[in-house]
């Protein structure tokens, strides 16, 4: 069997057929080069899978922001999202997050009192 290098990553992932896996295992038992390669690939794979899971910016995951999108119409959704995006990317602008909460509460209150407010008037376009 020639060196089955193209199969080594799939072997690590358990994505080979039983027959392919058996042939690769048989080869690895006698081939130091492919065993080295397999270990190097396994190291890369492990490193990638060990990368820390990153938290999205808080405003993006804020329930209140997404509640606005559920209750509001398309334009309201776009507006809420636009707010969240703007605030999420504002570098070092922590007070802006507080402003978002305040604005979200105020807008939510208006929606509850007057469900007809499903379209935000102004320069914010809907989808």
């Amino acid at each position, binding site marked *: 069997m020639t060196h089955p290098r193209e199969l080594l990553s799939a072997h690590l992932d358990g994505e080979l057929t039983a027959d392919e896996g058996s042939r690769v295992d048989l080869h690895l038992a006698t081939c130091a*080069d492919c065993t080295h390669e397999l270990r190097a690939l396994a190291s890369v*794979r492990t490193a990638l899978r060990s990368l820390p899971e990153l938290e999205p910016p808080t405003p993006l995951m804020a329930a209140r922001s997404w509640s606005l999108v559920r209750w509001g119409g398309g334009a309201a959704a776009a507006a809420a999202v636009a707010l969240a995006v703007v605030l999420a990317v504002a570098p070092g602008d922590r007070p802006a997050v507080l402003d978002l909460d305040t604005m979200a509460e105020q807008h939510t209150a208006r929606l509850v009192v007057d469900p007809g407010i499903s379209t935000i008037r102004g320069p914010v376009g809907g989808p």
Partner: protein
Amino acid sequence: MSDDAKPTWEEVARDHGRRIYNFAYRLTGNPDDASDLMQEVLLRVRRGLSDYTPGSFEGWLWRITRNAFLDEIRRKKRRPTVALPDDDRFSSGAAPEPDEVLAESRLPEDLQAALLELPFDFREAVVLCDIVGLTYDEIAEISGVAVGTVRSRIHRGRRMMRDLLR
């Protein structure tokens, strides 16, 4: 969540938002672009849920995510898809290195930098496999290529990572 269940939009945002963000961040290396993409994906999910037929939810979600990412690339023309290298510098023809790469000892920043060096097709396949945790079949379905192509892209992507981290 069962494939037979039709999720609510809030469930998608809550249960998958973090994975979408991580997918986007690992592809772009940029938190702003990742935030933009996550927002765009969730808006598309919201618009598309009414037409979603319970089945392969993962495939449906990640097709939306991938399309949103590619649309964003086209829109910004910031990081176009890179063609696969013709010279095949990373083919299996070269003699294997005797030393095993200790990639696990590298800093996350080094790994992220190496990821961004990969051609897009390789990077996407590696991220979908090792960061998102999809199977080769799922990646093939999402990417619209054969499983054998996915297998090759993941393998070559990891080999390039190994060389870059050496």
